[in-house]
């Protein structure tokens, strides 16, 4: 049975996260809008439905772990953590400021951040280490790692993919935010990585493909991953870079660019319009 209330709520949360991302990036006059906006539903699905976590006890040993391997999407991660209650939303105003826990790329000192990241290609290996550690400690929990499609160009990702299949870590779930665009342009032009699903299958992973802007579909894939015994799962989430803000959508121009006050207002208007329309 489809939980309409939950689905509605996830859509609402995704939209709220987008608004928080735009505000945060405008205040900082720095950061990565495109890859943050494309991941809003992924973060909403994980932090508001899938993961067993306790914001009141962020270091609870039995929790699911989350690694944002595409660390430049930190703004949407921080938005999700704030919205979920790990820290007050006002703290988002300190993003990129001196002495802030909210660094441009995620740092483990921040509540809710299980692993530092920022140098692409490293998160899946760390996630595998955590998954093996959980197995050793008999902790019944999972590790979720979010990667970018451009990030798949890093060789270490495939070292980790090979190893996770060897160890059969079915408590490891990778989610690829497949927004098709990287810093300089289309991923397929910069360095083709298609066919992505076939690559993961060839590495003996359990593969799901979903519309990455359909949060309930992401939730369902994460649930299905629990039934994939003896194999790690990758969820290929097809997304649109800059999703939700018309002038940021599907372009590399907004991979990393400052949001002016005017454009912020325009973006927030669009986001709230869409919310009403739904």
């Amino acid at each position: 049975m489809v939980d309409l209330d939950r689905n509605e709520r996830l859509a609402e949360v995704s939209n709220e996260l987008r608004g928080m991302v735009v505000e945060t990036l405008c205040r900082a006059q720095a950061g990565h809008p495109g890859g943050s906006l494309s991941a809003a539903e992924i973060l909403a699905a994980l932090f508001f439905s899938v993961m067993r976590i306790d914001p009141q006890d962020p270091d609870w040993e039995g929790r699911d772990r989350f690694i944002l391997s595409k660390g430049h999407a930190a703004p949407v991660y921080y938005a999700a953590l704030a919205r979920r209650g790990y820290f007050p939303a006002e703290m988002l105003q300190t993003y990129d400021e001196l002495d802030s826990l909210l660094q441009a790329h995620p740092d483990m000192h921040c509540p809710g951040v299980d692993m530092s990241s920022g140098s692409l290609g490293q998160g899946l290996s760390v996630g595998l280490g955590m998954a093996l550690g959980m197995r050793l400690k008999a902790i019944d929990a999972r590790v979720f790692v979010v990667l970018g499609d451009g990030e798949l160009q890093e060789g270490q990702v495939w070292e980790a993919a090979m190893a996770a299949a060897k160890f059969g870590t079915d408590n490891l779930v990778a989610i690829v935010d497949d927004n098709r665009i990287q810093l300089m342009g289309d991923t397929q032009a910069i360095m083709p990585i298609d066919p992505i699903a076939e690559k993961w299958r060839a590495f003996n992973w359990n593969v799901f493909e979903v519309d990455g802007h359909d949060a309930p579909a992401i939730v369902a894939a994460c649930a299905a991953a629990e039934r994939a015994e003896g194999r790690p799962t990758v969820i290929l989430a097809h997304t649109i870079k800059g999703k939700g803000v018309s002038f940021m959508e599907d372009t590399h121009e907004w991979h990393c660019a400052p949001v002016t006050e005017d454009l912020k207002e325009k973006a927030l208007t669009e986001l709230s319009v869409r919310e009403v329309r739904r």
Partner: protein
Amino acid sequence: MTEMIAMRDAYGQALVDLGEQNERVVAVDADLASSSKMNMFAEAFPERFFQMGIAEQNMTGVAAGLAAMGFVAFTNSFACFATLRTTDQIRVSIAQPSLPVVIGGAYSGLLGGKTGKTHQAIEDIAVMRALPHMTVVAPGDGVEVRKAVFAVADYGGPVYLRMTRDPSPVVFDESYDFKIGRAVLVREGSDVTVITTGLMVGRAVEAAGLLAAEGISVHLLHVHTVKPLDEPAVVAAAEKTGLVVTAEEHNIIGGLGGAVAEVLGEQRPTPMRRVGVADVYGESAPNDDLLQKYGLTAGHIAEAARSLVERRAAHAQP
């Protein structure tokens, strides 16, 4: 005849004994555990050993993940690959978050068993030392390797543990107290100070013997922890004789010689000579030939010390 122990044999046994005592100790390998003797741990505790294949970057990241789950993770490869192929993984996934991972570097320096410059590590101390939060430990003999293994496992942060392959002279006895960051005075002397790291301490003991026969008294300080450097001990050792020779099986740039020069330059300027690899790459050849050609023998340490003493004597002439 001096007793000889290969650091790797001491390492393998120490890991097994550590694993017995501490079940939080885990090990990850990149297909070299039989070389470093980490395979002794693998055989004793197969469930705590993870073979990652020839993929050092992934191995390093997996170690970080295990450390984040509360384990103390030892990585394993030759020193060059363990530190240089993986520098960014160590930097971002281990050093920045200060995770308790021990980067195990076997086969450091030039003595890689006829493998040549690709497998020789002469830059590793410099690179690891430049990483904030990183501790760099280079034991001088098998006894010290054992003590270091137990100490680094309790340290609670990232450590680079630098070891060598072949049997080397035993310098220390079991009774001596090893503490990370504390230098060891091996021999009191009055004419010239020699400061060593790694297995150069054995060659320095030999050099001190050669010089004693010439009437030159060597003050020998062993620095198993290159970072954090025991600065008071280094300054005191320099003040004792007014002359300093550093000795390491590493490039003369950025390693122990660099670290000692940084401290003395600021706190106690002292005439120095650095014994080490003279900023060149090595080659594959028998050990003794390599040490001779690249200037790493007891004779080279003695020559450096002698030259400082003679230069001071010449300057003292009216």
